């Protein structure tokens, strides 16, 4: 079985699990909405300030939701020792990594149709259809950039009792370039782009998504060898 097919099998398995128990998706979605709501209290009723910060809040909501989703994604494997079963099958760890990363990315993309409208309404931002399309593209890149290192670190920390502390501690500084790229480009989409800088920030975002997914894919088999 080729690596690609193996990875797709992992994705299918994850999505099927997700579909059977929708609890995770719904709770992460709710969590994202609540964070968006809380952020709006940080800048108070100042609507200009809120509009300027909307992009940052949206990306931070994605980030905070992603840690919840990521740690859950390997906790499922830990319970019932499912991961050992997976590794006993002839699944290449590299395929497992890319499959998991892809399913985590898809999971985070599912947050977009809910979180974006909520943010647009809460922070009173206007966006045309083209802007919305670009925003979705950026969201996808950000989801991939967060999932790529996130999957590796979630796999490593999933067995530790202190995962809830460690995962953000390791992941947050690492994804700052991704966050910066996402925050700046999405903010420019929402508030206007006088110097046409969106593409440069999007390139930064995409570059780090690629760097992290190749580097972490390279290291993942070593992390697995020690047993998750």
């Amino acid at each position, binding site marked *: 079985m080729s690596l690609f097919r193996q990875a797709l099998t992992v994705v299918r398995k994850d999505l099927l699990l997700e579909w059977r128990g929708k609890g995770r998706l719904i709770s992460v979605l709710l969590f994202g909405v609540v964070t968006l709501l809380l952020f709006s209290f940080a800048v108070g009723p100042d609507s200009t300030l809120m509009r300027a910060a909307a992009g940052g809040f949206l990306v931070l909501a994605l980030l905070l939701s992603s840690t919840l989703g990521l740690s859950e994604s390997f906790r499922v494997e830990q319970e019932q020792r499912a991961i050992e079963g997976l590794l006993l099958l002839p699944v290449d760890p590299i395929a497992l990594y890319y499959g998991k990363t892809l399913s985590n990315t898809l999971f985070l993309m599912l947050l977009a149709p809910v979180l974006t409208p909520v943010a647009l309404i809460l922070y009173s931002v206007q966006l045309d259809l083209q802007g919305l399309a670009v925003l979705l593209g950026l969201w996808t890149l950000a989801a991939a950039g967060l999932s790529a*290192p996130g999957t*590796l670190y979630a796999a*490593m*920390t999933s067995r*530790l*009792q*202190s995962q809830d502390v*460690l995962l953000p*501690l*390791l992941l947050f*500084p*690492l994804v*700052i370039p991704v966050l910066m790229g996402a925050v700046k480009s999405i903010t420019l989409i929402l508030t206007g782009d006088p110097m046409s800088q969106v593409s440069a920030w999007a390139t930064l975002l995409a570059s780090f998504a690629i*760097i*992290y997914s190749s*580097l*972490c894919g390279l*290291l993942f088999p*070593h*992390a697995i*060898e*020690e*047993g998750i």
Partner: protein
Amino acid sequence: MTRQFKWDSGLGLLGLLLLFVGSYIGLFVAPAERYMGETQRIMYVHVPCAWNAMLLYTLAFIFAIVSLWTHRPKWDAVTTAAVEVGIVLNALLLVQGSIWARATWGVWWDWDVRLTTSLIMVLLFAGVLALRSFVHDAGRRATWTAIATIVAFVDVPLVYFCVRWWRSLHQVQSTPDTVAPMMVVPLRINAFAILFLAIWMMAQRVRVELARRAQDQVAEPERIAPIGGSTNA
């Protein structure tokens, strides 16, 4: 265990001596800078810390690759030592930089690329140590330390090159051509001083790690992991 004079003690003392000599020249012999005045003297500790922190992180990266390859405990120990000493120098670097920035730029901190990436750098490598302290199985701890170190290293070339690639508040690297000769002397002496001290610190840290590992092997290997992690790193 006999206490003989070890090579690292000699290197450490040499480093200390050089640090006194270099700092003396830097503080009292070298001229003040034409614009920055006396505050420029911060350079003689700031720049050596920066150079050596980057050097230690680079070494840690190389050691981490070797550690991942060979699974030998000693490589894990040197990786950890390089990361930890790198963090100390990096933290000092940020504080010295902040003081110097207040004097020259007029602010304690600014979100310029050099400053931002240096701050990320210390957080990333501190994360490596945090991860270590939570893993109790020695083999897994070594592997994960190596992985986290390799990933964290992505930021290091960014820190070095960002001032050339992008417009920043922080000046680009100086060269001997752009620095007065009497300022180059203490700078070089202190660079070697900090390097020797860093090697001494690394050697001590390696000894700590190896001693702890020997202890763990004596103690029952299947001990129950204490909550919160008592293995402080």
